[in-house]
């Protein structure tokens, strides 16, 4: 068991699934669920391997870098892969009920997305990362447009432009690095990279591209309409996972390159932008009139927190752990919220916040999902969000950078504001004027499952952080 090359199967299984679902559309659902199962096994196998044997490298085609491409997995990779699995598996089950028979292209596109994410997390080559970014971006855009309404189409188009601009900026940076250092291998580059202007510009280009793709304030303009107008399971994937792909890549570049090329100003800028995102995103979420827009703006806000950790990364382990835990808990909580919002849409045909009275009576499980996921977004114990904020505060206090702690606390208050906006309506005990449509039980249950997971993430912090340490 422990010798199997799980690292390869983590990418190949969803990719083969995507191909098979395309070739055999009538069996799309079954192919997707089977491929999901297989990918899950591969991810768990790889994680166990990593926990036992430490970080691993895999030279594709047995060509070692710099000639060939190598895959690389350490604890950070494993946590990302597990996060993807955690969100994807319930979302596929949800989608089976959500899409009924019609949208058979969803299964192929969804598996392409999964393959792209896994390939991105595992890639150890800066150009290969560009290809995975494009695979990720195009599948995300196609999924966004799958809704078919004009709003979704416009949002998808805008998303595509932002995504292409981001990856071309990244690619230009890759070109400069290759011209100067004659290698595309991430780790080798990390060892040889210097502080000359060309390298600095290359890194700035790559980082800017990733910031655009991660929708960090003020480059977030494309995110709310895309995430709000996509179909619910797609929104869950986009908000929970896709933005984490580029955030992970930024973090990886930072960890590999920046110890040698530290510019204090750059981490400060990221932190400040993160603070701006927390405030602006939360404020927009508080003002939103539709449930899905509220949840989407909450994503803009929540994506600010990981960036607060960047100025603290140099100080030590806590900041990295906080950053990763923010990604993890937001993935589960936000996916749960979007899935629950999808149930609301299914029941009422619209999601205007002003008209959501008495939700509790119709969709009790979805309301429960909102409450539990909300607890994690606000950061109350024992949720994953609480652990992340706690770690961030510790890192901030340890280095005496109180400012970031204040932003975190402010964000907590604002998050409470928008979460309670949902709950006060939902818990009102009034009878509804129009009869809601039935919502399949599996849709409500999967949302609840993810919400519970986001809460429980706080209780499994020790093993998760232990895994994260592999290879550090």
């Amino acid at each position, binding site marked *: 068991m422990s010798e199997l090359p799980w690292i390869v199967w983590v990418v190949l299984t969803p990719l083969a699934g995507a191909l098979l679902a395309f070739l055999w559309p009538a069996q799309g659902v079954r192919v997707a669920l089977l491929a999901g199962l297989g990918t899950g096994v591969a991810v768990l196998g790889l994680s166990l391997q990593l926990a036992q044997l430490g970080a691993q490298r895999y030279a594709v085609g047995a060509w070692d870098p710099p000639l060939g491409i190598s895959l690389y997995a350490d604890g950070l990779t494993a946590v990302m892969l597990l996060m993807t699995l955690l969100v994807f598996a319930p979302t596929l089950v949800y989608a089976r009920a959500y899409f009924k028979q019609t949208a058979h292209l969803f299964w192929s596109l969804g598996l392409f997305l999964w393959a792209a994410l896994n390939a991105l997390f595992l890639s150890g080559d800066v*150009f290969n990362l560009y*290809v995975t970014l*494009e695979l990720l971006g*195009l599948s995300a*855009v*196609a999924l966004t*447009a799958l809704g078919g*309404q*004009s709003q979704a*189409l*416009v949002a*998808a*188009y*805008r998303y*595509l*432009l932002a995504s*292409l*601009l981001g990856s*071309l900026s990244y*690619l*230009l940076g890759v*070109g*400069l690095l*290759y*011209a100067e250092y004659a290698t*595309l291998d991430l780790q080798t580059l990390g060892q040889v990279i210097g502080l000359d202007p060309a390298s600095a510009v290359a890194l700035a280009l790559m980082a800017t591209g990733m910031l655009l793709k991660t929708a960090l304030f003020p480059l977030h303009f494309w995110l*709310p*309409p895309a995430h*709000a107008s996509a179909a619910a399971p797609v929104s869950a994937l986009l908000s929970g996972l896709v933005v984490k792909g580029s955030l992970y890549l930024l973090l990886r570049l930072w960890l590999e390159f920046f110890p040698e090329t530290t510019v204090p100003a750059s981490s400060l800028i990221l932190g400040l932008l993160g603070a701006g995102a927390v405030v602006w995103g939360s404020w927009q979420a508080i003002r*939103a*009139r*539709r449930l899905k*827009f509220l949840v989407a703006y909450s994503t803009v806000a929540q994506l600010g927190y990981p960036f607060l950790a960047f100025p603290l990364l140099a100080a030590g382990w806590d900041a990295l752990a906080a950053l990763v835990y923010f990604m993890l808990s937001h993935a589960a909580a936000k996916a749960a919220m979007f899935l629950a919002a999808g149930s609301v849409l299914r029941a009422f045909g619209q999601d205007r916040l002003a008209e959501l009275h008495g939700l509790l009576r119709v969709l009790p499980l979805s309301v429960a999902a909102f409450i539990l996921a909300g607890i994690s977004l606000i950061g109350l114990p024992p949720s994953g969000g609480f652990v992340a904020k706690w770690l961030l505060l510790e890192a901030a206090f340890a280095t005496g950078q109180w400012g970031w702690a204040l932003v975190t606390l402010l964000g907590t208050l604002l998050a409470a504001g928008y979460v309670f906006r949902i709950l006060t309506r939902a818990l009102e005990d009034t009878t509804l004027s129009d009869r809601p449509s039935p919502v399949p039980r599996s849709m409500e249950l999967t949302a609840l499952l993810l919400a519970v997971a986001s809460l429980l993430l706080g209780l499994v912090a020790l093993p998760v952080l232990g895994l994260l340490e592999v290879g550090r």
Partner: protein
Amino acid sequence: MSTLVFLLVGVGLVVMSLHALFVHTHLLRQVLAINVLGTGVFMVFIAWGSQSPTPHADPVAQALVITGIVVAVSATALALALALRIKQTTGRATLSEETEE
């Protein structure tokens, strides 16, 4: 010398297309701008690769750009399909500032 000339052409294409991308609102013009932008980036790769001592330009740079060209046509096709569908459903061919709802 070719290297220097075309490196600068590549940078020029990037500058022009970035500006065009930000000021144009017509969907097709944006697609054109993205394509020219990609060409500028590829040009930088190949111009650099052309100073390799072999009979042909750096083979890795060439392979990367071929991959890039195929990715670019894929993205362009998706963008054009979206643009056409937007025109069909909304009757408009431009992106304008939009607000929620």
